């Protein structure tokens, strides 16, 4: 018996040494087959039990099983270690240079003029204004006449106009929409609150600060109890939303034929914060929009009773807003559509 046991002990020792030396899974599997297979040495030993006595057999059998278990366990442990090492090696091979550039995804950009329009739209939509889009080719009477600018009104000097014929023209401002909307509005449904953004045209020679085509947004709020204090409150809110809460705002008298009283709105200069610089022409202030209480003649022209209803209107240059906000120094860039310009406005 002892000779069998000794054989088993020797087998176990030798087997474990081989297992631990195995370099890969295939080698390990070969060892397993060699050691534990049907033609392996342990089977051989067990076969030799026939020569043992009945009394001796259980002890030797049990010992042989222990040896086999020990070897099996050792193989399993080694297998896990080899598998782990294999994965490690694979991962090491798969390592990437994560600093290489990503595969580009093509994304377009929204035009800065439209971004400006939509930012302002959202501010006014939130205050209950609706967005109205009128005609670019307008009737002279809506562009001028109904806005308290009869023929030969000196204020028409301020607006050089592209005419199609004497009655039809390219709108010079967004006010015609106000006149049209006002005419159609049913005050029994509540006050009239609208903004109108769009393209306008003037006979200007294109240069860094002039364009024969640009964008304006006008707005109008007419109701029974709309005051100049509301004008100030509404426009201050919108201007701060757009230009930043830290801007100082100043309202000063001005003149537009379609409003009375009329207002010009300035904000403190971004660049110098009011100290005076080239951007604000050393005044500390930048003019951003014109507004006023809608002129009674405009209300009358739309069939609205100025004794009962009143309110305010305003107009602002979208191009100017964008130029001020982003420091753009040439208005032509908006319409040249250089991709190196367009892509800057995310």
């Amino acid at each position, binding site marked *: 018996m002892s000779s069998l046991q000794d054989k088993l002990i020797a087998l176990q020792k030798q087997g474990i040494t081989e297992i631990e030396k195995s370099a890969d899974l295939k080698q390990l599997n070969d060892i397993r087959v060699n050691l534990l297979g049907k033609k392996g040495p342990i089977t051989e030993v067990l076969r030799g039990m026939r020569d043992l006595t009945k009394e001796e057999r259980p002890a030797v059998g049990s010992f042989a099983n222990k040896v086999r278990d020990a070897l099996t366990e050792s193989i399993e442990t080694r297998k896990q270690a080899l598998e782990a090492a294999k994965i490690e090696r694979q991962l090491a091979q798969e390592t990437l240079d994560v600093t290489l550039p990503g595969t580009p995804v*093509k994304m377009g950009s929204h035009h800065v003029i439209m971004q400006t329009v939509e930012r302002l739209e959202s501010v006014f939509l939130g205050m209950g204004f609706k967005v109205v889009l009128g005609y670019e080719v307008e009737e002279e009477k809506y562009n001028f006449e109904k806005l308290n600018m009869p023929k030969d009104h000196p204020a028409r000097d301020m607006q050089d106009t592209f005419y*199609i014929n004497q009655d039809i023209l390219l709108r010079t401002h967004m006010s015609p929409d106000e006149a049209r909307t006002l005419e159609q509005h049913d005050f029994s449904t509540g006050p009239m609150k609208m903004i109108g953004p769009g393209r306008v045209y003037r006979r200007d020679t294109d240069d860094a600060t002039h364009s024969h085509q640009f964008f304006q947004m006008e707005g109008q709020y007419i109701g029974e109890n709309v005051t100049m204090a509301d004008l100030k*409150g509404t426009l201050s809110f919108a201007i701060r939303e757009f230009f930043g809460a830290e801007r100082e705002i100043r309202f000063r008298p001005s003149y537009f034929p379609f409003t009375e009283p009329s207002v010009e709105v300035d904000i403190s200069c971004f660049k110098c914060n009011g100290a005076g610089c080239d951007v604000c022409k050393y005044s500390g202030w930048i003019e951003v929009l014109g507004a006023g209480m809608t002129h*009674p003649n405009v209300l009358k022209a739309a069939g609205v009773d100025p004794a009962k209803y009143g309110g305010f209107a305003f107009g602002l240059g979208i191009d100017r807003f964008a130029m001020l906000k982003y420091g753009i120094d040439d208005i032509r860039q908006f319409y040249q559509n250089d991709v190196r310009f367009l892509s800057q406005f995310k």
Partner: protein
Amino acid sequence: MKISYKWLKEYVDLDMTPEELANKVTLTGIEVDGVKHPDAGLKKIVVGYVESTKPHPDSDHLQLCQVQISADETVQIVCGAPNVAAGQKVIVALPGSRIANNEKIKKGKLRGEISNGMICALQEIGFSDDVTPQVYADGIYVLPADAEVGQPVYAYLGMDDAILDLEITPNRADALSVRGVAHEVAAIYAQAVHFPKVALTEATKKASAVLQAQVTDVADAPSYNLRVLENVTIKPSPLWLQRRLWNAGVRPINNVVDITNLIMLDYGQPLHAFDYAKIGGQTIEVRRAQADETLTTLDGKERDLTEDDIVITNGADVLNLAGVMGGLDSEITNETTTVILESAVFEPTHIRKTAQRYNLRSEASSRFEKGVNTATVLTALDDAASLMADLADATVLAGRVSPTVLKPADVTVNVSTERINRVLGTTITTAEVKAIFERLGFGVTEAAGIFTVSVPPRRWDIAIEADLIEEVARLYGYDRLPETLTASASTPGLLTERQQLIRHLEATLEANGLSQALSYALTTPDKANAFQLTASQPTSVDWPMTVDHATLRMNLVSGLLDDLAYNAARKQQNVALYEQGRVFLKQHQATVRPHELEYLAGAITGDWQTATWNQPAQPVDFYQLKGLVESTLAEFNLTTTPEFAATARHQDMHPGRTADILVGNQVVGFLGQVHPRVSQQYRLPATYVFQLDLEQLLALEQQTVMYHAVPRYPAITRDIALVVDESVTNAALTATIRENGGSYLSAVQLFDLYAGAHIDTGKKSLAYTLTYQNTAATLTDDQVNEAFAKVVAALQTEHAATIR
């Protein structure tokens, strides 16, 4: 309008700085563009006395001048001015001085001769050429003989003043005068104005004895007044008068002309002076010009007159364009001895039109067209006559010759405190309102908060209640008005569905790689005409400024090609742009006003993706563009699926690579490659474009979005590869597959297209994956095989397809 602070101070008591005044005036109603101190930056510029001159030994034009620069110091100054002479008082920039443009003057040598400073021309100390008197334009300026040697020159030249530059809006033409501004400033500071009284001494001889006048149409000249002045001596004006003029930006000429300009600046009333001897007769007549008449104006140009021009004549010949410009023939010259002085009110519109017609905007015409103070037409005339008596030794003949006279009257306007507060959102008291009207110098009576306000003629801009409310608001202070967000009925602020869908389309295109462009809507007639989706006649503007911006676009593609060309010229070759905007269409040439239609267009050129380290460059192609268009169209969720039909009808597009986009029978757009001939004109490589008519698409029926159960049973797919004639289209094959696919066929997808080796010439191979799906049960292979066999058979019979 340039307003002298010193002049203003003669009319109103001012104790604030010019800058403080400017800020206050700006915030109260008239924007002050800036305050200029003419002597700013100047240093050590004094009165000198030229004791003697002798020629520079080494120059043919320089003079060596011995100049006394203080009571006990005379120095040598080299001077090159042609008019320098002994006995003159001159402007001397001493060594260490600063002259205009911050230039420093140092002691130095000029061709070997010491020069201790410089004798200056007016321009050298900051005067503009426009205001420098002609006689000193090309030489040094000569100060009056009583100028004190060694004293700074600034006060003599009016340079110690401050000049406020007022931006006058068209309604406030009353402020185109020093007196008007004085009233404004007085109202702001609650001060009184004080204007000097002018006494006019008339001769016994009557003006009417030597001059008659008539106005044909009172409406053309509602007030027309003349005075006659005899024994006039034409000479330069005294320095005080010249100072006022040049500080207001007006060049001094001679005493008579200067006085008319001074009065215009002072009162805002333009005056005109005629040489009596040259009018040819004793008559002045105001009438309309006749079509065949001409006039040579003061600038020497002959003008062909029209019946819309109001003119001044001698009863026969035209002398003047009324209120705009005088005629050369009756101009004041140094020989003039008898002067006719005119002060009038002309019909504003005609003046404006005439000034525009001849491009003759002048200080006078701009005042006449905006209106003048009817209360001072005669005062201004008399004041001018009186000054001419003083400064030109004139004898003023008795009486005015006035064929038309306006009786100035106050305008009465009513307003209530309640109304003011309702409009302004304020709580201003009746007493405060009353005080404001009084400060403005308006007559005011009040009972129970209701005001009756008498507005004098000098404020002809005020006629209605709203005008008075504005006066109250601005003098109360815009900055003191509260800021509120109105408490009136709430209104829904919503974008319309159409507005939302357009925004959504834009976002889709941007997410798909196209950048938004905004091009010019006015373009050349050719570009406006190109790429039309629906045939249209062009709409052009009258008198375009350039041919580049003459006609309204009838397509959006030309503008995008302009943009691509602009980019390509700047080495930006790979560009993908879209534009959403309007086109202007009309069916008939005779129609004036076009329809305005919202369109959407895109253009791609160069590489869609440039080569990167991990993928090759991907040039733009038709199918790239088609995919973009399909995904854009998908956003409309139409009940009828858009179809693409090959077309050669667009002459600016590639005839074999263009498709019309059809929904039912409607052509809603097109896409394809720009004709190589056209892209070459734009210097562009292969470029693909699409254009969609949003109006049509938005009007089409959309599917209602309803939930469909996600299939619970597996789908089964079958692939089929077939060889057909090259002319057989994908659309035809797909249609056959769908028609014969049976009720379980849920999708057909082309996954391969091949022509070339291993395929007969004239043939092509296509391969499709057909997906079968039963939403109610698991499909069996038999069901699918049966359905698939029908498709195979149909393809064979309908398209002579060989199944591979």
